[in-house]
């Protein structure tokens, strides 16, 4: 009858069996594993079943590859990119420039819209402030979405650049728009949260998929 200590050791060994199979186990741990397998039938059967199951699953689940036209299209894209890079402005800088330009235009537009004295001002004054606030909020969400291109882009952006840059940009834009940023905080490394009102259009945790950030407009 195994005692608790033995069962815990077996749980630990099952992890080590997986790591051994993937070639990620240190030599010392591998030695310990081999010694344990010699004396523990449960772990030995887990080891043997796992090895057979994985080997059969690999054969079962692996497919040949995409259609040849797909690979051809990828290589065409790869060549086009190299050509543009050598004869034009580097793409990354061009994109950064485009973002900057879009931001400047959009922010200027917003500032002009809110500050200008004139006929439109009365129209603005007549509208309920909640509606105007909502418009400003949408503006911020829209600009953040431009920066990230789309949902997948947002996730990649945060993965590559860290959430800090996106967070900071969001905060600055909210400030520019005169929105309250006290509730806009970064709770941990990959968790951005916006006040309740921004939730539908802002950043939020995509909880179940464990993708850190979601942008939707």
């Amino acid at each position: 009858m195994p005692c608790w200590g033995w069962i815990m050791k077996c749980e630990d060994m099952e992890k080590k069996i997986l790591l051994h199979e993937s070639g990620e186990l240190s030599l010392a741990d591998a030695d310990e594993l081999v010694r344990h397998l010699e004396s523990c039938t449960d772990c030995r059967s887990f080891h043997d079943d796992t090895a057979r199951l994985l080997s059969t699953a690999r054969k079962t689940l692996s497919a040949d590859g995409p259609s040849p036209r797909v690979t051809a299209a990828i290589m065409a894209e790869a060549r086009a990119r190299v050509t543009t890079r050598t004869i034009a402005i580097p793409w990354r800088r061009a994109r950064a420039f485009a973002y900057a330009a879009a931001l400047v235009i959009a922010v200027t537009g917003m500032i002009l819209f809110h500050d200008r004295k004139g006929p439109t001002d009365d129209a603005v004054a007549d509208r309920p402030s909640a509606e105007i606030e909502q418009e400003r909020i949408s503006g911020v969400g829209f600009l953040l979405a431009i920066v990230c291109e789309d949902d997948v882009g947002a996730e990649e952006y945060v993965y590559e650049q860290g959430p800090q840059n996106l967070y900071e940009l969001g905060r600055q834009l909210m400030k520019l728009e005169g929105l309250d940023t006290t509730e806009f905080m970064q709770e941990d490394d990959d968790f951005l949260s916006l006040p309740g009102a921004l939730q539908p259009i802002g950043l939020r945790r995509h909880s179940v998929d464990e993708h850190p950030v979601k942008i939707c407009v």
Partner: protein
Amino acid sequence: MEEEDKDLLARYRQGDVDALAVLVERYRRPLFSFILRMTEGKEDADEIFQEVWVRVIRKIDSYRNKSFISWLFRIAHNLVIDRARRRKKFISLDGGMSQSSSEDSGIGRDSTLSNVLPSASPRPSSVIEATELGEKISRAVDELPAEQKTVFVMRTTGELRFREIAESQGLSINTVLARMHYALSKLRIVLQEDYAMLGVDHEM
């Protein structure tokens, strides 16, 4: 010795298209097998495979020093989820009765991995799958909870190490190992009777 991913990427950055071709070829089968298993069919898998590489090509300048395979599979996985989410949204707009999707624009509780990813459907993808045991394994894998299936398929078809899966999914290695462990436990139960046959070479 095989040239490393990061060296090939560096060569492509300097304009050597052949270096990228080596990478595409290196990951052709593992990446495509992963996508095909996680999505609805060959046509979808073709499109997603292409989109993954287009994104790699476009973002190559901002890619920094993380494991390339983790990055590659992360993009693929995001695109798979994104497509499933859109499809679900489209289906519910197209006359579906889903209540939550109308108020939730398809992102949130309604689009958890388990809800958006395609459910089990027989999709023969290789010779062995045509055999009875192959079909059984294939079905059992499709019936795993989505996050366990993701780890299992990345490990088997993609040949990612656990450390690479963890990096790709933004999880701790212990979480990844636990998911793999749950997946194996379930598959072991489903395939109990067939264990005698497992490991025998079924290829023709």
